């Protein structure tokens, strides 16, 4: 029983971790909490739905379409809303993100209607019984995909030139500009990559819960944010750790404490961590 909850927690946690990485990338370069990240998650799931159900594409192409779609949503957010707000009081972009999230939810509601749609592709998950745990191929696939994405991001940020530019901007925007890095491009990159990661998480969870609907991004968006702050805002390993802790604690809490508070455990842990260690688990203190 407890092992099964841990497996479920890891699956949910890997999706939170991907959303948290999106937050962290953007927070790192811009110091902005993009609360509309959950709507990119939703956009990814709907992108896949459009590709599979409307255009009739097979799974790999549909996933690719979903990734591109969420990256485009992320990039246009940056270009249309956040770039004009650069340098304002930090509360202003935060509120603009909230406005954006309401806006995108209602766009999805108008375009697709309020009903919950099943995952558009046929998928027969196999079940494996491994001692106390039942594992499905779907769960395995989701966790491996998440790990692959995290690994890819790690490589990108630490080894590629563009990723290093991203880090430079996160460390010191002005100094990065002095050595010829264009901060705007890095910010756009962060939105594009962060959008893809959140969109991937949305597609994964649309398959896992077999549900795609306009408000699906609200709670994962908030929890991804919690995970990012929990691990240390701006830290990539922190975001992954935060996501896993969150996924595990809410599954264990729902199973052993009270299931009605499932969505509250994430925040309770977050509040406790912030009061004891404000910079997050792996964050550096200022």
């Amino acid at each position, binding site marked *: 029983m407890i092992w099964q909850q841990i497996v479920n927690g890891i699956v949910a946690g890997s999706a939170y971790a991907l959303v948290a990485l999106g937050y962290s990338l953007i927070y790192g370069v811009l110091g902005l*909490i993009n609360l509309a990240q959950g709507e990119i998650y939703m956009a990814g799931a709907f992108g896949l739905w459009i590709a599979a159900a409307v255009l009739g594409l097979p799974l790999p192409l549909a996933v690719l379409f979903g990734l591109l779609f969420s990256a485009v949503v992320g990039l246009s957010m940056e270009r249309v*809303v956040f770039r*004009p*707000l650069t*340098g*304002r*009081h*930090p*509360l*202003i*972009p*935060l*509120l*603009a993100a*909230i*406005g*954006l*999230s*309401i*806006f*995108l*939810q*209602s*766009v999805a*509601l*108008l375009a697709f209607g309020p009903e919950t749609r099943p995952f558009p592709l046929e998928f027969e998950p196999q079940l494996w019984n491994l001692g106390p745990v039942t594992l499905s191929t779907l769960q395995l696939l989701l966790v491996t995909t998440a790990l692959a994405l995290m690994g890819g991001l790690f490589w990108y940020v630490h080894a590629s030139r563009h990723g290093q530019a991203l880090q430079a901007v996160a460390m010191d925007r002005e100094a990065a500009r002095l050595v010829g890095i264009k901060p705007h491009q890095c910010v756009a990159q962060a939105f594009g990559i962060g959008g893809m990661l959140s969109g991937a998480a949305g597609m994964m969870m649309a398959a896992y819960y077999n549900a795609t609907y306009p408000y699906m991004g609200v709670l994962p968006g*908030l929890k991804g*944010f*919690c995970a990012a*702050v929990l691990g240390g*805002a701006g830290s990539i390993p922190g975001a992954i750790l935060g996501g896993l802790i969150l996924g595990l604690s809410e599954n264990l809490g729902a199973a052993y404490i*009270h299931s*009605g*508070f499932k*969505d*509250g455990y*994430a*925040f*309770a842990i*977050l*509040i406790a961590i*912030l*009061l004891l260690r*404000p910079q997050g688990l792996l964050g550096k203190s200022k």
Partner: protein
Amino acid sequence: MAAYILHLAILGGMYVLLAASLNIPVGLSGQVSLGHGAFFGIGAYISGLLAIHYAVLPFPLLLVLAGLGSAAVAVLLSPPALKLKDEYLAVVTLGFGLIFELGLKNLAFTGGTDGLYGLPNFGMQGADFLWWVWGAVALCLFVTSRLRKGQFGRNLTAIKESERTARTLGIAPLPLKVGCFALSALFAGIAGSLYAHYITFINPGVFGLHTSILLLCMVVLGGMGTVLGPLAGGILLFLLPELLQEFADYQDLVYGGLLIVILIFRPQGLLGRAPGQGRRRFPLRRRTQPAPASTSNA
């Protein structure tokens, strides 16, 4: 029609009261809260539960107890939270609001998701509530305007602009910040009590994240730190959905879009002064950055 307008005036007054109370920490001492709906709820549930279990208590006493109870919760919870800044404080208050809402839904004595029914209205008519609500609004706005003045107001501004500088000047930030939060919770609690006895039923959904976000938007749209800003922002955002009822499907689209447009083109809010326009205080300036292009109606 007249009854409908009266209803709008009362309910709108409650939202203005809530926005005005949120303006105290957000606008005066610079503490963002995304959990203000919870203090509204604490007042409503205290007042509702007391009215159900102790029917002898008169309405004014309930109003005071609801306000004080809500303020007491703020005083107890805020000292550790207020050591956090900006986005961290935003997420902690957001978490507090969410946990509060879940608590209301899952606890037995708050009536679960159904909430509390059949609360007494003490034989008061709509017009009586109108006086109470707008009286409380006037009191809250008066307190805000007093807080902005004198030594106290200058201390708050110092904390808002730079807490470290304030400290070096010998100002202890924490008691002032806690005071602002408690005062804010007091008025939110009063609004909760008024709401509970005017509507006569309450449920957890009213006091959740949606309300908290709406209130913060009212404050920012009206102009953070201004006395009359919450009045303008509150009325505008409260009436907008009513005016757009025919286009109910597009309501959120307009609401979200409008919020973005106003933040891009008039970030200081409707009644706030643009940087460079004012004589001494700029409600929204924090980073030193060129003044945003002021619009023609500025």
